[in-house]
């Protein structure tokens, strides 16, 4: 990066660190922070959509839809989320391969589960083993995002169900009195009003989501935890930048990153709550009115 980095062994002190922290592998480490942010950016709306769908499903008049919504929202209450992460990644992977197997090679006669093996025809392998490294990484990342969305969708659904219940009953009765259908009342009255009740819960889910991002490591993604372990491990003099075991410092860096991230989120969410409570028939809204 810098001109003086030509010969690392001759460097000392601050210059050594400047070169060390800007070498090629470190840029991969910094990129992995972007991966975390990307995961959050993609997962948060997807999980919210899943949660909204599930919360609406629990209010459905069709029993199977309602049961599905109830089971989906109840499952995260008794089972640790890590179990879901480990479970869904394999299930999604095998599910996709199985579907493609049935479509691509219908004449295949061998059983797919042979003892401890899961064998689909070569054409159904996802992603194809010949495809470039980038495709493999993108596929794994997409699986991870989907897994996160499923688990956090259930969290969101729980919050949204509570929020839908919190909308004053009189509002819905008024909608009925105006002759709105169930569907109209849901979309025009319930949905616009529920967000202010949902916001405290959703902020909490956001915090949990941030704190769950290091679990990407368990799903086989080269994320910040992976790179922190990789870069922090001791380097002998064979390497350009030899150093002892610095994993402690790398993890300390990650800790500070997360502390800053959650703190900033907290402040932003507190402001948002104040903004949204404005003019609402809630305690916070009343407080804002009195203060004005």
């Amino acid at each position: 990066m810098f001109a003086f980095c030509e010969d690392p062994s001759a460097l000392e002190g601050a210059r050594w660190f400047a070169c060390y922290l800007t070498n090629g592998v470190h840029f991969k480490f910094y990129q992995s922070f972007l991966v975390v942010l990307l995961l959050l950016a993609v997962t948060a709306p997807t999980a919210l959509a899943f949660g909204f769908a599930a919360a609406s499903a629990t209010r459905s008049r069709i029993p199977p839809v309602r049961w599905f919504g109830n089971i989906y929202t109840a499952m995260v209450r008794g089972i640790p989320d890590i179990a879901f992460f480990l479970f869904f990644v394999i299930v999604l992977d095998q599910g996709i391969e199985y579907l493609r197997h049935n479509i691509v090679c219908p004449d295949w006669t061998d059983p797919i589960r042979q003892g401890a093996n899961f064998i689909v025809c070569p054409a159904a392998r996802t992603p194809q083993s010949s495809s470039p490294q980038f495709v493999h990484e993108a596929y794994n990342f997409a699986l991870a995002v989907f897994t996160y969305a499923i688990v956090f969708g259930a969290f969101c659904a729980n919050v949204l169900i509570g929020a839908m219940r919190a909308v004053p009953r009189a509002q819905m009765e008024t909608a009925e009195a105006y002759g709105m259908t169930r569907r109209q009342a849901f979309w025009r009255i319930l949905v616009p009003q529920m967000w202010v009740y949902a916001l405290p819960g959703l902020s909490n889910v956001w915090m949990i989501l941030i704190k769950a991002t290091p679990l990407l490591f368990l799903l086989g993604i080269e994320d910040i935890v992976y790179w922190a372990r990789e870069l922090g491990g001791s380097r002998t003099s064979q390497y350009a930048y030899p150093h002892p075991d610095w994993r402690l410092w790398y993890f300390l860096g990650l800790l500070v990153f997360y502390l800053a991230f959650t703190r900033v989120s907290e402040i932003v969410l507190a402001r948002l709550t104040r903004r949204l409570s404005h003019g609402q028939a809630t305690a916070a809204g009343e407080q804002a009115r009195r203060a004005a």
Partner: protein
Amino acid sequence: MICGEALQNYGLRSLGFGERLLPRADITLCDQVVLIGSGLIWNVYFAILALCLGFFFSVALAVARNSPRALLRKPADWFVFVFRGSPLFIQFFLAYEAFVLLPRLGFDLDLGSMELTVETRWLARAWLGALLVLFLNTSAYAAQIFYGALQSVPKGDLEAADAYGMTGWKRFRRVVFPTMMRLAWPAYTNEAIFLFHATTLVFFSSFPAFQQKGDALYYAQYFADRTFNPFVPYPIVAIYFVLVTLCIIAVFGAVNRRLNRHLPGERTRIRYRPNLIR
């Protein structure tokens, strides 16, 4: 007897008793149920000890945070901020790396009849190191809950205590503490459930499962990797965890009823729908 052989071989495998090798080929349902159940011992061990020890520390932290003295308040605030603001997973990694760097020392503890050598390298093992992290983590979360409850203690209660001439420790023990517990208990139940679920992280962070002595999820992943069939071990884990979660709700519900026994009517029932958010 159902699963007799598997029970004999793997019933206490997670503690190091029984068959040394884990089942490799011909994995039966019995093996999976028994071995995963054996791993559950660790989850329960971590959860109970961390909760029991954390309870006292978190009450102390909550009181410290409520103190007017900055010398007490600030450290408690920072402790809660650090442990609540960062992921448990990173805390495990960080703690493990720190414990590994500790010098290998041994201290002799004289326990009357027997002598015990306490060694610092125990901290790099899951049973002590991970327990310490879980203890600190749950203390921070519970401290936040208790602090919130402490601030919601009705003003009238405190004034009544003043009117009776109660001060200091007596006022805390007789008036503040019981009300604080009563107010915090539903949220604390939730925290207990979360902590129990968090124990599954131990063997997936740096802490090694020495001689393959792991927790329920560790064995479940072992089976899923072996058989390449996730549809058996993970549902087994799920059932075990749901059962223990129901037990936690039952026990904490009983405590809740006792805490609220002087109050009339419906308020004594714990909310059936526990808040999931930690």
